[in-house]
């Protein structure tokens, strides 16, 4: 029996006839059934469809066909990606019963390669949040400690992979929504360079920042999913026409003369002590592997969160204007005498949660006449400067190392102040602002007060340099064993 967390192991077993795709899928659905009541990763599953597709994979294999490099791999997708089956709700009451007539390009590409979508996972509403607590349709728990959040916004996907309900999941990352939950749940989360993967079918939050990316247990699986989803798309003109390299080819080959940039204040008092310790250890691991550690300076990095919240909220205020109750989505009942304005105001008031409203208001404000120059325009200018800063830094090193998040997963309901929640994104937003790639990989565990929570290490690479970034991540993975650890699978005993 193969590990049920390695894509290559599973798909090879299916291809070699050791296990049928239907068996793999039934196991997967069984695990979800028994564990997900506790964890709450899934918004909904597509049992019938998934088993049907698995049967087709088996049939094709029996006929000698090649159903593709992901043959029979069950994957979970975040609820903010549309599929022409099931509902696509982005964690919002606004889209609670929304059925899309088309499927996201990234998902289509995965299924064309043989993967099978088993279900959609919970996320913060419209991907706005860092804990998956802002979800109107359910809450996900951290599989390492169910009192804690899984991170967010791709919390459902992260928890599902960490608890081995599925071998892989898709997340989306606007300011850290793949990497931060990957860090909190102890898995691999890759945010590709902006334009690497089509955004078509991703329910937009911040269009200039959003990217879909893989969440897996292993670096190798992330590489496999990335290269399957990457490439230009006629449905998204911001999707780059850039060569998609084979990321697996040299993955296990350590990079000689690796230069790793480490920000000079990487260890700092804003981080949890245990996070500081783990990052120091990670630096040492790389040094032991022969990497040259280069101290770097990113003086503008401290403005990242501010820039990010201005730009993402501005874009969101426009992107979410379409949810007006006219054509689809939640529509308020009107009382006699109420008019069009009431229809808009009530539908949106009822359909959106508080965090979404807060960001729409913030975005509307920063774009308003009289404030545009002071906020939005300056944020764009600062963004350009930060990009330049990264361009310069990437001339001196192959990747930048640091923590993914300043803390491990925090207890549910602890983070009441939106601003403190925003500061969880302090390390991750930079890659979205710069448009380059970033990955979070398991780097250790923070143990205290009877809790043992994973901590992630973030590596950032220059734009469209994922192949090298993945190799650098793989070096760490080969030298450590954090990724081999899994939370105890919680099962609901049914008698």
């Amino acid at each position, binding site marked *: 029996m193969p590990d049920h967390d390695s894509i290559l192991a599973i798909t090879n077993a299916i291809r070699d006839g050791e296990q049928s795709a239907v068996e793999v899928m039934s196991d997967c659905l069984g695990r979800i059934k028994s564990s997900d009541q506790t964890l709450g990763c899934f918004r909904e599953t597509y049992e019938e469809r998934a088993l049907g597709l698995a049967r087709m994979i088996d049939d094709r294999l029996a006929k000698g066909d090649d159903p593709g490099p992901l043959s029979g791999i069950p994957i979970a997708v975040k609820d903010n*990606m*549309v599929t022409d089956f099931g509902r*696509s709700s*982005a964690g919002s009451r606004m*889209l609670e019963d*929304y059925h*899309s*007539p*088309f499927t*996201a390009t990234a998902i289509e590409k995965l299924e064309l390669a043989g993967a099978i979508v088993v279900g959609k996972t919970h996320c913060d509403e419209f991907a706005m949040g860092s804990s998956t607590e802002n979800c109107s349709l359910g809450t996900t728990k951290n599989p390492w400690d169910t009192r804690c959040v899984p991170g967010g916004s791709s919390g459902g996907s992260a928890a599902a992979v960490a608890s081995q309900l599925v071998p892989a999941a898709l997340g989306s990352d606007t300011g850290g929504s793949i990497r931060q939950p990957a860090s909190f749940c102890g898995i691999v989360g890759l945010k590709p360079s902006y334009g690497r993967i089509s*955004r*078509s*079918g*991703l*329910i*937009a939050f*911040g*269009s*200039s920042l959003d990217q879909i990316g893989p969440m897996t247990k292993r670096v190798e699986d992330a590489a496999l999913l990335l290269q399957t989803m990457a490439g230009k798309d*006629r*449905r*998204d*003109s*911001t999707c780059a026409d850039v060569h998609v390299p084979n990321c697996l080819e040299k993955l296990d080959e350590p990079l000689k003369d690796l230069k790793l940039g480490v920000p000079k204040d990487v260890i700092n008092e804003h981080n949890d002590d245990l996070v500081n310790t783990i990052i120091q250890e990670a630096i040492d691991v790389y040094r032991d592997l022969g990497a040259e550690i280069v101290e770097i300076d990113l003086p503008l990095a401290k403005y990242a969160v501010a820039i990010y919240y201005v730009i993402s909220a*501005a*874009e969101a*205020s*426009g992107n*979410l*204007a*379409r949810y*007006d109750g*006219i*054509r*689809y989505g939640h529509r308020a009942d009107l009382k006699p005498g109420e008019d*069009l304005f009431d229809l*808009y105001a009530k539908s949106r008031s009822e359909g959106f949660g508080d965090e979404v409203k807060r960001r729409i208001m913030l975005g*509307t404000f920063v*774009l*308003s*006449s009289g404030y*545009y120059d002071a906020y*939005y325009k300056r944020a764009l200018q600062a963004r350009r400067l930060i990009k330049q800063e990264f361009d310069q830094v990437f001339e001196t090193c192959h990747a930048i190392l640091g923590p993914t998040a300043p803390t491990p997963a925090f207890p549910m309901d602890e983070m009441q102040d939106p601003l403190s929640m925003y500061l969880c994104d302090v390390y991750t937003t930079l890659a979205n602002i710069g448009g380059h790639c970033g990955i979070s990989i398991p780097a250790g565990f923070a143990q205290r007060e009877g809790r043992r929570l994973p901590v992630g290490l973030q590596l950032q690479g220059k734009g469209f340099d994922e192949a090298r970034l993945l190799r650098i991540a793989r070096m760490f993975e080969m030298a450590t064993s954090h990724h081999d650890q899994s939370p105890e699978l919680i099962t609901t005993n049914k008698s």
Partner: protein
Amino acid sequence: MTDVRSTRLRIGMEIHVELATHSKMFSRSANVAHSDHFEASPNSLVDPVVAGLPGALPVMNKQAVELSMMVGLALNCEIASFSKWDRKNYFYPDLPKGYQISQFDLPLCRDGYLDIPSETAEGGSRRINILRAHLEEDAGKLSHDRPGGGFIEGSLVDLNRAGTPLLEIVTQPDFTTAQECDVFAKELRNICRFLGVTEGIMQRGHMRFEPNINVIIELDDHREIATPIVEIKNLNSFKSLRGAIEHEYKRQVEAWKVDGLEHASGRKSTWGWNDEKCITFLQREKEEAHDYRYFPDPDLVPVVISDDWRLAIQATLPELPRQRRERYESDFGLSPVQSLALTDERDLSVFYESCIDSYMALDDSTATRQHGGQQCANQLLNAGAKRANELNRNIHDLGITPSQVAQIVILRDGDEIGSTAADTLFGLLCDPALDEEAKTIAQQEKLLQVRDEGQLDKWVEQAIEAQPQAAEDFAAGKDAAAGRLVGEIMKRSQGQADAKAVQAKLRQRLRDE
């Protein structure tokens, strides 16, 4: 108050042109402004992008950009090497995304001009400067009646028009009369149709005009005062454009005499036009502090136009109406009225030129292009215009072919057919079933002139017998009397007698000349 010495209009125009691309501005959905889809049923030209569904992204239609470049070049504009897309944010049920994709500060075309014929006695032309021309997407349509009429609770949205490429051309306030606006509007429509960028059907809203009007009042003490600017929305006929401007001219002067309000920032108001009552009516007092919160659309990449691309488009520009008119006048000696009539519709102009080509191909003797041009123009603008009027069709759509027109001209050249018979023959050939040569039909219908001596002599004798007084008068030297005799001969010959030969015969017979 000082008395008014004089008043004059000051008008700038915004013109919206719906481009006839195959698909919409930012999606692959078919375009309702393309003639293949005029009759599409409501909400049938909709896809996820048009409906603003979650996850759907706009992708720019390159053809729309190229058509806009053509218009920009025809209007002598600078074509921006770099322009971008911006979101104009507002809520309305016909606006699916909650924003319109437009171009805010970097339009595709700017700083151009169009010369229009001047109204002054000296002739010449007047230059209307073009501020900018930018591309955007149209909104859908809202209706408050049941389709086909009747009350309905609420309103209905039709998204067929949503996302249609719309070119907005903005002029400087260079117009001083309604007539100039009218001439400009027609010329612009004509140019766009010659370029093939729009069907230009006014009733379908393919072109919509929004004049910004105010009046400069000169007082007796030579002070000049400007009345507040009024923008008239959505005029979609030339008649309403003229009507609205003429009405505003009077209304603003009268209003000023009453309230004395002068132009000032924030005092611009938006008015509509009532086509039945022929009056303008107030829609929005003051320019509402409408904040559209424009910002660059992150879903689209900027439009970068290289010199090569621009030059390639420039090379595809056809001869424009004005150049064509000048050529007709200089090469064929047409009058300005004739050349204007022949370039009013691109298709007519094309038809006219193929008549001339046919003529040149048919007549191998002494034909000149100039003569052919003149005679074909005469046929089309006399016999053709008459039939077009009767049948309510375009001259180029009557059913007669360019080759048949050319054949009529040749029959006339050789005096084989009289002018009345030529007109009759033209009319007959408008029956598309008659695809034979003009001469064959003329023979069948006995329209060719008769020059047979015996037959002519017979008719002459009969006419003298029937009109003895006229014969006597003519013989006595009264030339005018010939008319009655010729008329009689024509009646008897059913128009077939060669008029020149008849005249000669009469002189020979009665005056012995």
